[in-house]
C-alpha cells in the first residue's frame, strides 16, 4: 500500500507563538498568537515559532514524523524537527504541539512548513502551510 495511505493525516496545522494546555481539562489547548505572517523590522529576523497539529490515523501505531521550515526562495531547510505520533487505537484524533524554537529568517518572502511521515522507510508529504515574512516599511 502507498506510504501516504498508511501514515497519519494532518487535519489541522496552525502556526502560533505559543501553545498552552488547559490546567482543568484534558486535551484542551490555548493557542496564542495564531498567525500567517510576520512583519520584520530587520533581517535576519528572529522569531519563536510553535506549530499545533491535529493528526488522525485510521490504524494504531507509532509513526515517526518530521516538520521542516523551508525558505521558498533558496529551497533551504531553516528548521528541522523530528517527532513521534503515537496512536494507541484505530481511528484516533491526536493533538500535538511542536516547538520549533527561535527561527532565523534571512530574508523577506515566502516560507513553507512541511509535515512528513514515514513508514517502512518510505516518506510521504502529509501537510503544507505557507508562512510569509513581510519587511516593515518604517526604517
Amino acid at each position: 500500500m502507498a506510504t501516504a495511505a498508511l501514515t497519519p493525516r494532518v487535519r489541522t496545522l496552525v502556526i502560533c507563538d505559543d501553545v498552552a494546555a488547559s490546567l482543568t481539562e484534558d486535551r484542551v489547548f490555548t493557542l496564542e498568537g495564531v498567525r500567517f505572517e510576520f512583519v520584520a523590522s530587520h533581517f535576519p529576523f528572529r522569531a519563536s515559532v510553535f506549530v499545533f497539529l491535529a493528526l488522525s490515523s485510521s490504524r494504531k501505531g507509532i509513526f515517526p514524523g518530521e516538520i521542516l521550515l523551508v525558505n521558498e526562495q533558496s529551497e533551504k531547510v531553516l528548521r528541522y524537527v523530528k517527532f513521534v505520533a503515537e496512536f494507541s487505537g484505530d481511528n484516533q484524533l491526536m493533538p500535538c504541539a511542536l516547538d520549533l524554537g527561535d527561527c532565523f529568517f534571512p530574508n523577506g518572502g515566502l516560507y513553507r512548513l512541511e509535515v512528513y511521515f514515514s513508514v517502512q522507510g518510505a516518506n510521504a508529504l502529509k501537510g503544507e502551510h505557507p508562512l510569509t515574512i513581510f519587511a516593515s516599511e518604517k526604517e
Partner: protein
Amino acid sequence: MRKKSQKPLQVVPFRFLVGEIVVDPAEIAAVEKMRNRLRIKKRKPRPNDRSAV
C-alpha cells in the same frame, strides 16, 4: 485501609508537546535530499498532462 497491592490512582499527563530540533548538518542534508527526491517525484508529468507538451 488500602491494601498493599492497591496502587493509588495516577493522573497521567497528556503529552502534547513533542519534537526534537535537529541541528546535525548531516541529518539536515539527508532530509533535504529526501525532500528533493519527493518533490521531483511529485512534479513528474502524468501521461494525460498536456502542460508537459
